[in-house]
């Protein structure tokens, strides 16, 4: 989990999550407002810069995290740039028999969509690569997210690591007994392991419930929110920086 470790290690770890979220929100809204490819590209660049230079997220980590969405972007844009032959009667093409061919008709839309996606992605990455998830959950708590949903998030986040460790240890133990010798063995081993861990879902649930009751559980899971004493000042900075992005975007619209 690269995002996870980057968030704990980055320079903006102690900055109020509300400030980082405000800045990311400004980035998203700006990208939605802006029209011209140049401004969208500039927004994306500024947001990447903020994460890499400001929060000091290692570039290698940044790229590794961005790679899968970029793959999706490439595939989807290519999809939009082909069109069925029959659907373009005005153009003389060899694909008129029902094959596929390139079309430039959607190129402006594709360019804008791609750049907008890059800018919004950069806003998201800037947020998640500098903010550990518990801080984000704390922010959602302040934003009055339903308690039950928050409980699910807190438990899910904690148990994620417990399960991941259990999974890794299980796979290692199976490998030690030749469980992944071949493709066929691998499937059988995985099925066994997932089944065993699915049963653990209930056992772990019972244990957690007991442990919570031992600590006087009163219904929902209550936790003390982390405090960020600098939050007002940091929020102000974030609003200021966000306004620059918004100004760029609004200027593009005018």
């Amino acid at each position, binding site marked *: 989990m690269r995002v996870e470790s980057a968030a704990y290690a980055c320079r903006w770890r102690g900055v109020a999550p509300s400030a980082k979220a405000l800045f990311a929100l400004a980035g998203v809204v700006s990208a939605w407002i802006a029209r011209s490819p140049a401004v969208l590209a500039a927004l994306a660049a500024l947001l990447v810069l903020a994460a890499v230079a400001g929060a000091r997220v290692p570039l290698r980590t940044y790229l590794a995290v961005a790679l899968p969405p970029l793959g999706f972007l490439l595939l989807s844009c290519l999809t939009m740039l082909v069109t069925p032959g029959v659907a373009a009667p005005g153009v003389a093409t060899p694909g008129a028999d029902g094959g596929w061919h390139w079309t430039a008709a959607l190129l402006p839309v594709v360019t804008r969509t791609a750049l907008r996606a890059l800018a919004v992605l950069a806003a998201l990455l800037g947020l998640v690569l500098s903010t550990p998830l518990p801080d984000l959950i704390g922010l959602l708590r302040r934003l009055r997210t339903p308690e039950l949903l928050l409980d699910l998030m807190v438990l899910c986040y904690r148990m994620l690591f417990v399960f991941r460790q259990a999974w890794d240890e299980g796979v290692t133990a199976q490998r030690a007994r030749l469980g992944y010798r071949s493709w066929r063995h691998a499937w059988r081993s995985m099925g066994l392991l997932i089944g065993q861990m699915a049963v653990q879902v209930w056992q*772990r649930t019972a244990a957690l419930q007991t442990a919570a009751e031992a600590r006087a559980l009163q219904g929902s899971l209550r*936790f003390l929110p982390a405090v960020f004493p600098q939050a007002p000042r940091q929020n102000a900075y974030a609003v200021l920086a966000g306004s620059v992005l918004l100004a760029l975007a609004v200027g593009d619209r005018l």
Partner: protein
Amino acid sequence: MNTPGANRSASSVPASSVPTSSASAALAAVPALLELQAVEHVFADGSAGLRGCSLALGRGRRHALLGPNGAGKTTVLQHLNGLLRPTGGRMLWNGRPYEYGRAGLTDLRRRVGLVFQNPERQLFSAQVEEDVSFGPLNLGLDETTVRARVAAALDAVGLAGFGARAVHHLSFGQKKRVCIAGVLAMQPEVLLLDEPMAGLDAPMQRELTALLDGLAARGVTVLLSTHDVDFAYAWADDIHLMAAGRCIASGAAHDVVLQADALQAAGQRQPAALALHAALAARGVLADGPAPRSVDALLEALHALPAASPAQPLACPEPAAQRHAPAPQTQEQTQNQPQQGQPQDRQGHAHHRSGETPA
């Protein structure tokens, strides 16, 4: 010689009876802080967890619940914390029966904290501070108080400054301490720990015993379960011996370990320190009297024997010994020995009682 519990008993007890009476005599005067009276527990699947288990815990003492795996130690702990309800017999707090209503249970769990064995199964939040705040918040305390308690609890377990860390970045020993902090933050009068030493190596065990001794010194009643008779003897004031769902012996540590039948019934042997001391006392190497609590304390006692002590053979006419002390000293020395040995043993005890733990 004084059993530690004896002081607490009514002052009119004749002094002569004190040495043999053990702590249970002392408990007769004041009710025990916590008590199981003939508690039965049958689980939902029909298996018996406890069979007429009776047990009394004196206030402010260090108790060890000793027994093999499956003897019912965890079941007892869960009864004490109100997680399980006896299917027969009753539970007492300060002489009053447990109340199992919501308010009664919340009150009980504020007073009697329970730390489970496996940290992965009792930490809910991935952030240290958040998890520790869970208990105090459930008690309905305000934010400032909770924050202060969380800080104090983390400090007590030696994790001050770890509040913002992620639980999954901690070591096993640290996770275990977070669990303890989560209970300490509720400021319980009794701290129950299920097999706290499991999975810890020697230095980590020393740290944890030091922490527990510190709590006991501040008046917290501590009860831990263990299957290690040597550890129980070295650490505890009182030992409660369990086997097959029954509490088969209970009392001051140095009394319980002398009950060979009960130990055997619980699948335990004698503590090594006791057995060694007995063997050495029989041979006059160490003095009679209370045995040191651990092999280390016994070793100390051996090393602290006067230098002339290797001694007894030398005192006899033996050519190789000629360079040593002259013969006339012999008798005096031999007579002195018991008295010289005694302070060693007392020191072992004092050392032990002061809260430092023999490794």
